[in-house]
């Protein structure tokens, strides 16, 4: 197990102080690595909170360039970075916040060709893509490699989150056996404070799974509503006919 330096013990003392977390969990975070795919209103805050928590190494990936309408929520980007690729800006912001972080940036979205390699290089994946197909590719790859996947998604002021841990929980394909025919990734509005709340919770679930702290959303789907602040959790189950997890 890696050791914590005096600087790290000081930097992380307020979370080490949390009952049940402690130095052992902090060491596990330092030794761990995470992949965050897409760096928008959800993935950006996810990556930032993982960096802040002391995850040792991160791969961040996004194939797009910053547009003006990204800047109400994509907090890793810069106001003067419009028209430039997202991934290097995200890596720079993360590194500025946590210089101890080792971060690799890919200016590409996850696909069948890059997912096997990316997933093999990390301990956990946070997938925050607006594209169901991209999410399902990562789900299948995580399942093949036995890597946990934190899946958060939202629509306007409604969010969903679950922790997928092979082979114990249902997989994403169980929840999405086919892509909803009426899904429109740009058919709804997004408030940065709301997508950011889901990013924070996505990072928290990843931290819990990586360290063993608390009770992650295993076999449970959190659904919450930023308009009326109702939070519900639902039991979810494997599908007997799931082609990915085998039910």
């Amino acid at each position, binding site marked *: 197990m890696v050791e914590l330096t005096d600087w790290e013990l000081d930097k992380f003392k307020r979370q080490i102080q949390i009952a049940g977390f402690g130095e052992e969990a902090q060491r596990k975070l330092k030794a761990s690595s995470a992949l965050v795919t897409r760096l928008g209103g959800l993935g950006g805050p996810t990556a930032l909170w993982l960096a802040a928590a002391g995850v040792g190494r991160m791969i961040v990936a996004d194939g797009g360039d910053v547009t003006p309408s990204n800047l109400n929520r994509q907090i890793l980007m810069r106001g003067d970075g419009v028209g430039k690729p997202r991934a290097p800006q995200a890596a720079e912001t993360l590194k500025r916040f946590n210089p101890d972080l080792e971060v690799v940036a890919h200016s590409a979205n996850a696909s069948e060709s890059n997912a096997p390699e990316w997933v093999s290089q990390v301990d956990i994946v946070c997938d925050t893509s607006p594209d169901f197909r991209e999410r399902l590719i990562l789900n299948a790859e995580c399942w093949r490699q036995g890597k946990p996947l934190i899946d958060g998604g939202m629509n306007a002021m409604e969010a969903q989150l679950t922790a997928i841990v092979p082979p114990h929980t249902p997989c994403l394909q169980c929840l999405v056996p086919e892509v909803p025919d009426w*899904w429109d990734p740009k058919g709804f509005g997004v408030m940065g404070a709301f997508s950011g709340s889901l990013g924070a919770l996505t990072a928290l679930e990843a931290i819990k799974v990586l360290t063993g702290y608390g009770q992650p959303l295993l076999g449970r789907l959190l659904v919450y509503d930023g308009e009326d602040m109702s939070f519900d959790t639902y039991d979810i189950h494997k599908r007997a006919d799931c082609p990915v997890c085998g039910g």
Partner: protein
Amino acid sequence: MGVYIKLPTPLRRHAEGAKSLEVSAGTVGDALAALCERYPGLRDPLYDGEGKIKSFVRVFVGGKDVAELDGTGTPLSDGDQVSIVPPVAGA
């Protein structure tokens, strides 16, 4: 018997923006039928061509997936909440 149906954000536009509504029904199937009777625009997003609930639409009663109970035949009691939860991938 009055039960409450909670509609997800993407489907509310087919129900005049309603987030939750009360219907009279003794089973989950009856509740969804009553919902679609009131808002026929919900039939297409909820049901496939064979009249079955689409594979990606989950229906929960009291936090439990009705697929693990008696499906559309799952009985409802007065005041139960039926939640319709399709997946979302916004980011």
